[in-house]
């Protein structure tokens, strides 16, 4: 019985990841990460996702702070966006990365209004990504729990 449940969950995981690729939320870099996970590093993807989310939230909080000042420090803002863009790229968070590119452009043009708009977009994309990642990790944990039960 467990075998069927595990297979079903694995399919669910695979389909959900595929939907994220189809929506452009994730790109091929995420597949690269999955390929790096193996029996000697069974939690690799989970760990990277966790690191990414913690980092992204920290950066987004900082960016929000900078944007709330009357005079925006565009260069500090830019350095934060650069970081988030880098992490997004490394994890395969495609749409989030594009949102970062937009914020970098707005920041370069020193256009506060556009920066705020671009930032809102980043926040939106991140929230979407996080909830999808959470869903994925829940499935993963159920798979692991069932697999452990078998042993």
């Amino acid at each position, binding site marked *: 019985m467990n075998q069927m449940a595990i297979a079903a969950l694995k399919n669910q995981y695979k389909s959900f990841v595929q939907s994220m690729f189809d929506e452009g939320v994730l790109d091929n870099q995420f597949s690269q990460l999955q390929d790096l996970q193996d029996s000697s590093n069974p939690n690799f993807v989970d760990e990277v996702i966790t*690191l990414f989310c913690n980092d992204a939230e920290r950066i987004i909080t900082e960016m929000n702070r900078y944007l709330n000042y009357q005079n925006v420090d565009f260069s500090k803002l830019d350095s934060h966006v650069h970081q988030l863009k880098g992490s997004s790229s490394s994890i395969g968070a495609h749409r989030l990365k594009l949102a970062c590119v937009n914020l970098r452009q707005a920041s370069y043009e020193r256009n506060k209004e556009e920066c705020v708009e671009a930032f809102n977009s980043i926040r939106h994309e991140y929230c979407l990504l996080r909830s999808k990642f959470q869903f994925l990790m829940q499935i993963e944990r159920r798979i692991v729990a069932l697999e452990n039960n078998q042993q």
Partner: protein
Amino acid sequence: MGMATQTQFHVLAVDDSLIDRKLIERLLKTSSYQVTAVDSGNKALEFLGLNDNEEDEERNSSVASDDQQVRVNLIITDYCMPGMTGYDLLRKIKQSSSFKDIPVVIMSSENIPSRINRCLEDGAEEFFLKPVQLSDVSKLKPHLMKGITSKETKSNINKRKGMEEIHSPDRTRARYSELEVV
């Protein structure tokens, strides 16, 4: 058992991004390299035992060469880091009498030809665009082997330095198709 760790290549990875450090570490370990990952150029120099003071370097390098564990076969570093950039680190390594022969590879999220050229001209063996892939890591082997075999392989490496040879063709095509104005 002990023999295996001694013959394993040791790569020093330098990147201020936690995620990228985790990634490069996994990529390198998957390729059977021993890895030390640090978050800054200063920490990298500290790890090597290289200080700005030439006297210290001589003292430290004689200690380092006796101690197998500090031996580094390749350094792979991010370009954009606060404080000391990857380029600054490259220069310091190449200016050091003890460490100038350690191959250095630069990684960057930005595809800037003048930056790439400058790094290659100043002694970097390779320049990888991020996110780094397993196929990039497989290019490290010849540079690591160079340290073991003789100087005759150096002439093969020199032909890489032209701009048109920086990336393998398929990678260049992929990059140009997603050029973004940042």
